[in-house]
């Protein structure tokens, strides 16, 4: 227990289910993760793989009626977040851990001035006067490159990129220790993406925060992260150091992801893709979740669930075929 408390963030065997129209959706199935101070972890995976659910579980903001954390523990600065009261969580949300959501278009309250939305969190956590909160919010706006005289404007007066800047200003206003960024640039256009990422990286570095960056863009991961975790069907199939994973992708799914990136120096008609579709989370396949799509799968993959295999320094992979497959290479 104490040993576990030493880590900045540790997720142990997290399992989350949703219920939808009587069916159980297995969104997250036994995810374990560790993150140290000042590090950035990239969570990569297809849509619906459970990346956002992992982040929301850390914040404990899963929809209350339709979802349930079925098992596992989340330790943050030595405290088990699952055991904290709702009141204690209020102190952590926005102050110690904050989250950037995927779609800046809908993440801001349309009838509240943007400045006030930033100041709201500041006033709440920093116990400062209204005026100080406003000054702080104005500073944050300037910091993300928005003139402070736009404090009194409403979200509809901002472009998508600027809204995402506002959201980032909002999440960083209280100097959080951990930032959960859920596809922060997916909804933005490419030129703005680079700007926003650059800004996030600088701000996180400046405030010495840790970050979990959720994305399906491997390029973004390469740019931003120290560690990578590849999520497939609510499970981490490969986890490791950025260079280790990028240089030696071990899981067939990870290899497939890298294979799907078109290369500029090769002239190819068609893009590579991974055969098949992601599994139905209400009805997951037996054994390895990836085996129906895996080029290497055989009966042993269906009968037995693979355990994580260490393949390098702080690099592990969840594939039953790993040794044989590596040898064949």
């Amino acid at each position, binding site marked *: 227990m104490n040993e576990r408390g030493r880590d900045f963030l540790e997720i142990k065997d997290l399992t989350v289910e949703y219920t939808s129209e009587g069916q159980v959706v297995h969104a997250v199935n036994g995810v374990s993760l560790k993150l140290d101070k000042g590090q950035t972890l990239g969570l990569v995976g297809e849509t619906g793989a459970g990346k956002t659910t992992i982040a929301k579980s850390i*914040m404990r903001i899963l929809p209350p009626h339709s979802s349930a954390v079925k098992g596992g523990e989340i330790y943050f600065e030595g405290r088990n977040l699952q055991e904290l009261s709702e009141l204690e969580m209020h102190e952590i*949300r926005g102050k110690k851990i904050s989250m950037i959501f995927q779609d800046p278009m809908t993440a801001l309250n349309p009838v509240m001035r943007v400045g006030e939305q930033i100041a709201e969190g500041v006033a709440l956590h920093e116990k400062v006067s209204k005026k100080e909160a406003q000054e702080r919010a104005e500073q944050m706006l300037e910091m993300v490159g928005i003139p402070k005289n736009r404090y009194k404007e409403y979200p509809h007066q901002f472009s998508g990129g600027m809204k995402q800047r506002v959201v980032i200003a909002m999440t960083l206003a209280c100097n959080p220790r951990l930032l959960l960024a859920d596809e922060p640039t997916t909804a933005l256009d490419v030129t703005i993406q680079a700007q926003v990422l650059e800004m996030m990286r600088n701000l996180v570095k400046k405030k010495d925060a840790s970050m979990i960056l959720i994305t399906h863009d491997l390029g973004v991961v390469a740019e931003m992260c120290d560690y990578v975790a590849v999520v497939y069907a609510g499970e981490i199939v490969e986890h490791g150091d950025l260079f280790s994973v990028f240089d030696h992708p071990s899981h067939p799914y990870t290899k497939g992801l890298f294979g799907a990136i078109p290369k500029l120096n090769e002239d190819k008609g068609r893009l590579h893709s991974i055969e098949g579709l992601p599994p139905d989370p209400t009805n997951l396949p037996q054994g390895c979740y990836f085996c129906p799509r895996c080029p290497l799968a055989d009966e042993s993959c269906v009968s037995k669930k693979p355990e994580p295999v260490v393949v390098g320094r702080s690099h592990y992979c969840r594939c039953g075929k790993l040794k044989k497959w590596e040898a064949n290479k």
Partner: protein
Amino acid sequence: MYKYILKRLLWMIPIILAVTIVIFTIMYFVPGDIAKIILGTNASDEAYAALRERLGLNDPYFIRLLNYLKDVFLHFNFGESVVDGTSVTSALISRFPATLILAFTSILMSIAFGIPLGIVAAQHNGKWQDTTSMFIALLGISMPGFWLGLMLVLLFSLHLHWLPSTGIGTWQHWILPVITNGFGGIAATARMARSSVLEVIEADYVTTARAKGVSERNILTRHILPNSMIPVVTSLGGSFGMQMAGTIVIENLFSIPGIGQYTVNAIGSRDYYAVQGSVIMLAIVFSVVMLLVDIIYAYIDPRIKAQFEGQSKKRRVKSGVK
């Protein structure tokens, strides 16, 4: 914004003019003879002819229409009652407050009870609070006003003798009509508020607020309510208009001397000018209420305000003035 309000006020002129022309034309084609109604069936043909001539009934349609418009809009005179010769204008003015009280109290009840009921239902979606609220709302929507009114009179006036059943002498007189009139509004508002809150509860910005560490109470008052009340205001505005007309049943049931009762009596006795006057009056009130709703709308939703301002900006650019 002021420009927008002014523009809307100016728009009311053609609208009311059109309503007046339409109602006048309809009444013009209604069979029947005003002179016969005034003099009864026993007068001589000469007397009828003389009266028709005096009232200008022999004039062609356009002349009569123009005369009527002149009376209404230049002298604010809706004519005289065909039945008893009293001024329609003063009758409308004296009856207006009773109808207004009924409509206003009903709207107030919708706001005071319907909105909280809807919010509670949405917050406890699927639990007993939700089921109970929605059961009450279903009752309110299903029971017609005249039936509910009669039942209330039976219980509270005839059996228990707690409350008077007709007239408007004291405040006790108002209790039954106000409840009867307001119940449907409460029910409709509760359902509207519930569905609207349910929609907003799921919105991303509510999750954002929660992720900021805002307490559930502040999430409700600062984030959910301001957003979810936008459609509720619209429906309340619309129902205020309905109230002005819907009080017809209530006023007759409880013998309240309001515009509704006046209109029904006027229709029953073919009192042409009184019918026309009542309809025009209701049209004016309706237009004013709709304008008020739009102004409140702009106040609670900055996007709509921006639209209004955007319109006037566009116009300025078009006409070359900056």
